[in-house]
């Protein structure tokens, strides 16, 4: 056979293979659909996550304590509270306005010379800005400014740690040194493992930087010198978190995502094997002949899938706990990584509920496939409905609230994070557990309904997702 003939034959084979391949659902999915759809979906999820984080940060009210000599107190109180123009505005400008609004509530009210300030904890208000626009009532920075003089020594690290530990709502302690003419920096003590504290210190730095810049500009103009010739006001933030707490934070940012991925991966193959795989092995009819209710059959399958998912998740957690400290320690980072048993114990009940939820969803979808291979292809995109929200939830700054506790997947990722750091509030965690329980029950019910359909249980070919709703509505349950 000549070389030309061989090429011609090879091209004929290639055409046939391509024709056949392009009629294969998986090939079409991975060749056309996924490359085209993945990045827009991925970026959309990331942008939505970032917007959610930014929105939540902007809307979070935080409180800081200002420690300064009386002579400096009013100046810094004003610097921290005069940034009203930075408040988000309701209307067209709302999206472009950075930072949150600023209100002062001051213990200096006791000082007859102090400007009256709204009482702390006062209801958020909406009021017209100087430009006539309405100021959003969200995202306040409340400032406590105790009237007493600073001690001979400025509050130190131990004092700050004690203040923040004693008051959970306190985001940061801002200390203005007595002798500022020595260019001693203003120090903002905070705890980086608390999102509220990070927001507070960020807002303080933002406000003081804006104020300092104005002062420098005014001084430069008055002295007719270059602004660079003037020393800026230095604001240092000092993190009170211990290396162990920082390690917990690092784990808490990484682990929720890993836990979710592992729960999904641990359930993925059993879900396919026990449904589509059973059809392929021709044992589906054998199972339908078992002398027990079909609900029990499908529930048993989902329980088996959940067990596999739970084993995979637990083993991953244990392996990670054993190895993370040692391996990350070799990096030389000043971070002590530990995974205490108490944190694992706190995460376990939510993980169990989540794995059950994931297993019910994956098993229901996998039941639509006619073979193991098609089941894998079908669940490939489906698993993204868990992984994308988990990615969004791993963004720093997003916290578990009563609102986020209701968002599937996001809630469990955030709860994992806060439980691992040890900063979880009981209320939102309980709401997360209740929401997960309800979602798991709903997923279980829908999955059992799907798997019970005659058209699904004995399907000779994979059922397209577009027929999913029809399957749920129509008749024809096996019993």
């Amino acid at each position, binding site marked *: 056979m000549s070389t030309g003939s061989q090429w011609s034959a090879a091209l004929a084979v290639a055409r046939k293979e391509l024709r056949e391949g392009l009629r294969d659902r998986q090939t079409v999915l991975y060749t056309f659909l996924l490359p085209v759809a993945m990045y827009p979906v991925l970026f959309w999820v990331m942008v939505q996550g970032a917007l959610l984080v930014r929105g939540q940060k902007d809307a979070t009210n935080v409180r800081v304590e200002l420690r300064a000599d009386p002579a400096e107190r009013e100046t810094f109180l004003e610097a921290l509270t005069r940034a009203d123009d930075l408040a988000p505005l309701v209307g067209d400008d709302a999206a472009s306005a950075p930072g949150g609004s600023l209100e002062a509530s001051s213990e200096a009210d006791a000082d007859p010379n102090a400007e009256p300030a709204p009482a702390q904890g006062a209801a958020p208000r909406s009021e017209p800005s100087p430009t006539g626009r309405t100021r959003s009532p969200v995202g306040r920075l409340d400032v406590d400014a105790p009237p007493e003089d600073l001690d001979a020594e400025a509050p130190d690290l131990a004092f700050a740690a004690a203040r923040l530990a004693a008051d959970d709502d306190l985001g940061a302690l801002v200390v203005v040194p007595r002798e500022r003419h020595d260019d001693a920096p203003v120090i903002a003590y905070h705890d980086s493992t608390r999102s509220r504290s990070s927001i507070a210190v960020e807002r303080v730095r933002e406000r003081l930087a804006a104020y300092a810049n104005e002062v420098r500009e005014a001084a430069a103009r008055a002295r007719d010198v270059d602004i660079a010739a003037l020393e800026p006001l230095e604001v240092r933030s000092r993190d009170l978190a211990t290396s162990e707490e920082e390690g917990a934070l690092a784990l808490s940012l990484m682990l929720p995502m890993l836990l979710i991925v592992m729960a999904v991966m641990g359930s993925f193959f059993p879900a396919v094997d026990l449904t589509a795989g059973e059809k392929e*092995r*021709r*044992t*589906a*009819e*054998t199972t*339908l*002949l*078992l*002398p*027990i*209710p079909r609900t029990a059959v499908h529930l048993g399958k989902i329980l088996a899938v959940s067990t596999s998912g739970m084993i995979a998740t637990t083993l991953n957690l244990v392996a990670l706990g054993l190895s993370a400290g040692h391996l990350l320690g070799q990096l030389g980072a000043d971070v002590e990584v530990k995974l205490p048993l108490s944190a694992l114990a706190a995460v376990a009940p939510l993980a169990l509920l989540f794995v059950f939820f994931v297993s019910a969803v994956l098993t229901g979808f996998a039941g639509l496939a006619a073979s193991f291979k098609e089941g894998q292809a079908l669940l490939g995109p489906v698993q993204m409905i868990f992984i994308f929200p988990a990615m969004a939830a791993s963004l720093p700054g997003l916290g578990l609230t009563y609102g986020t506790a209701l968002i599937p997947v996001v809630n469990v990722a955030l709860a994992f994070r806060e439980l691992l750091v040890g900063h979880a509030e009981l209320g939102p965690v309980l709401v997360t557990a209740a929401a997960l329980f309800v979602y798991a029950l709903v997923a279980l019910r829908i999955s059992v309904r799907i798997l019970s359909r*005659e*058209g699904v249980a*004995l399907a000779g070919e994979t059922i397209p997702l577009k*027929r999913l709703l029809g399957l749920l509505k*129509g008749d*024809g*349950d*096996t*019993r």
Partner: protein
Amino acid sequence: MSELDQSTTERAARGEGGVAILAVDLEKEFQDPERGKVRAVRGVDLDARYGEIYGLLGPNGAGKTTTLRMLATIIAPSGGRAAIDGVDVTRDPLEVRRRIGFLSGSTGLYPRLTGRETLRYFGGLHGLEGEALDRRVDEVIAAFDLSKFVEGRCESLSTGQSSASTSPAPSCTTRRCSSSTNRRRASTSSPRAT
């Protein structure tokens, strides 16, 4: 298929008159996304008495397997009625499944279980337990001469061994009606009432 009068049907449906398997005007319709409504089985009447071997013959696509699947409660009839051993397949499918044995080309063995595990699984779900289950499994192994390969996984069985192992699975409990299909014999299906 015989034509049954009303009183005979009623008696047969109650399991009287020696009728083990009864079908009256049995129908099955499927909703096919491309072809619309498909009538796979229409107007099937049959009665098989205890001890009879009943042959159900027809060309490919005639609805033999679908009929047997309805009798075995794998799928639900769209119309008509059927009863096994006096139990209505629509009203009490679970009880029907407890009373029948059913083998077809699509009832495979669980490949990762051993023969003994398969027998214990079926026996357990049929309500046997403890010593009674052990005894029954041993009886079945002896009766079907499975001892040489019952401890191996079903996936390692030859075609002949697999067929031999499939038959006893439904026999783990006492039953009165069984059905098997054999596509190799010119699309012949045969419910057997014993």
